[in-house]
């Protein structure tokens, strides 16, 4: 069975399915919008969800576009090395759970910024965290837009640039009118549909191999080379592998919007159970992306995958078209698109919350009380700003694999929020200057290294080669940030006996 012909022309069936699905999600968002009156509801879906629903939303949010588009594409092109990305999700999520979920839940803080500001009792910290989180959120938004841009281009034949602009506009409307509850429900539905789309594609693909993994891998070796099953094709240097892994792990263990999600359930037991469901689902999703990647290498062929997008992001949709026909392609494209959209809305809402709560409330309006109404207005302004900037930058990163881009942004998160949050919760001696300098060090280091890397220097600026030969800064910036946090804290040791956060967390104090 070879790939379908003319898969990249706009196709009526596919487009019909596509719009049908979008209409459904819009209806849900509109329903949710009518119920979003308070800030808390806007930000945390009113804690009304069950464990199952929450777990599904978590899993969906977590895997999103980087998973099915990016990782599947990466594995279809480079094989084994892509597993470093797959396993990052399988390890990073438990790490998040073990380290941060309980303390933050007990502190009752909705965002990393709140948690840190509470532990360190400083509005400066809050503002710095806000800055770092905003950078991270913006970068991740770009990743999602690259993915969505490719999907729209595949489906509608628009130019990449136009596709990204269209998506930017859509996501802005979703975020403005839906709030978190809408995003949550969209997430759940999308997660279920994504599971269905992937499952159907996998079953159809595996039937091509008589449901035998041995046959699958044999054919992968035959068609794409035995090197696909061994390390070596995906990373230019050995150190980059470790850097990528470290960045992915520390970054994933710290995603602000996922952390926010942990709080949208009524109590601890339910929260933990939803975590279990999410972990299992993420594991299943992740394994699926890998299998789909290998299958795509055989069924679609690396040539066709690269032709649709050099970064490989279209492997999954092309595979679905090859095994399921154009109607199925429409379904899969719509689901992928909704996946990205919901993740993007979650990001934008988190970003606007950060701007409203942390910048405005923490830095500009320091001691004054900010009215809820003002916060909501500000959140919406921030939403517009974020969408515009992200769209412009999303256009610039055409042709990159979204999983690769995703882990770059994780490197930034892992270098900024992670070290400080970790130390704030588990180390008694973290001081405010330590945290501030530490976070800024991580931010500046990771961004500078990114700028000097081949990604920006060669791919974006068209120089001959990067100034450093490391595409992921994690290996350097994360330890550096830890060091800065610790060193400056030790030097500015003023307060002794500050009860550190973990002990405080057991008191469920209501200082806010």
């Amino acid at each position: 069975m070879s790939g379908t012909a003319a898969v990249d022309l706009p196709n009526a069936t596919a487009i019909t399915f596509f719009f049908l699905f979008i209409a459904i999600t819009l209806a849900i968002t509109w329903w949710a919008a009518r119920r979003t009156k308070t800030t808390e509801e806007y930000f945390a879906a009113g804690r009304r969800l069950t464990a199952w629903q929450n777990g599904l939303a978590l899993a969906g949010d977590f895997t999103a576009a980087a998973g099915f588009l990016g990782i599947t594409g990466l594995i279809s092109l480079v094989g084994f090395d892509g597993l470093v990305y797959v396993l990052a999700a399988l390890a990073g999520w438990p790490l998040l759970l073990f380290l941060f979920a309980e303390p933050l839940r007990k502190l009752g803080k909705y965002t990393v910024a709140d948690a840190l500001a509470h532990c360190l009792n400083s509005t400066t910290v809050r503002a710095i965290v806000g800055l770092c989180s905003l950078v991270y959120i913006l970068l991740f938004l770009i990743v999602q837009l690259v993915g969505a841009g490719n999907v729209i281009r595949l489906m509608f034949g628009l130019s990449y640039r136009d596709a990204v602009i269209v998506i930017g506009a859509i996501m802005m409307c979703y975020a403005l009118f839906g709030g978190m509850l809408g995003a949550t429900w969209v997430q759940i539905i999308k997660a279920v549909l994504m599971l269905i789309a992937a499952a159907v594609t996998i079953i159809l693909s595996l039937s091509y191999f008589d449901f035998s993994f041995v046959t699958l891998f044999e054919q992968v070796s035959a068609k794409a080379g035995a090197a696909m099953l061994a390390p070596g094709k995906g990373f230019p240097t050995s150190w980059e592998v470790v850097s990528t892994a470290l960045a992915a792990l520390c970054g994933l263990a710290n995603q602000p919007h996922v952390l926010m999600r942990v709080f949208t359930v009524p109590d601890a037991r339910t929260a933990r159970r939803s975590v279990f469901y999410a972990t299992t689902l993420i594991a299943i999703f992740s394994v699926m992306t890998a299998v789909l990647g290998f299958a795509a290498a055989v069924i679609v062929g690396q040539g066709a995958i690269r032709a649709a997008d050099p970064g490989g992001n279209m492997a999954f949709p092309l595979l679905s078209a090859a095994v399921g026909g154009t109607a199925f392609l429409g379904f899969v494209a719509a689901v992928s698109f909704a996946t990205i959209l919901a993740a993007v809305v979650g990001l934008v809402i988190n970003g606007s919350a950060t701007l409203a709560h942390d910048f405005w409330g923490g830095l500009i309006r320091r001691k004054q009380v900010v009215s809820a109404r003002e916060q909501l207005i500000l959140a919406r302004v921030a939403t517009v700003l974020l969408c515009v900037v992200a769209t412009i930058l999303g256009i610039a990163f055409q042709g990159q694999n979204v999983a690769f881009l995703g882990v770059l942004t994780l490197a930034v998160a892992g270098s900024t929020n992670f070290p400080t949050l970790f130390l704030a919760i588990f180390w008694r001696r973290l001081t405010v200057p330590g945290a501030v300098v530490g976070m800024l060090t991580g931010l500046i280091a990771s961004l500078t290294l990114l700028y000097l890397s081949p990604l920006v220097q060669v791919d974006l600026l068209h120089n001959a080669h990067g100034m450093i030969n490391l595409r992921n800064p994690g290996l350097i910036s994360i330890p550096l940030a830890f060091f800065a946090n610790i060193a400056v804290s030790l030097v500015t040791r003023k307060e002794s006996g500050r009860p550190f956060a973990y002990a405080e967390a057991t008191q469920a104090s209501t200082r806010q």
Partner: protein
Amino acid sequence: MQTEGLQASGAGAPMRPTLDEARETRRRRVCLWLAFAVAVIYIGFAVLVGFAKGLLGERIGQTFTVGLYIGGFVAVVPWLLTVFYVVWSNRNDR
């Protein structure tokens, strides 16, 4: 919830920790060990992928490579640890 034990002690010797505090300390220790285990397993895998390419590329049998088996291990263990944690932790909640 009585947690004055460690908190109330200023410069003096700490009083005996309450049951809640003991439980939280144990929970924290378990969490840290679990986190450490997961981190070591995954980063260890990455180090192998970066620096032991030959080893991971070795074939076991006709098709599968050493790397695929190790990858499978790295995939499953964190999930198992999560299951353990959820069960243990819910059972230990008051």
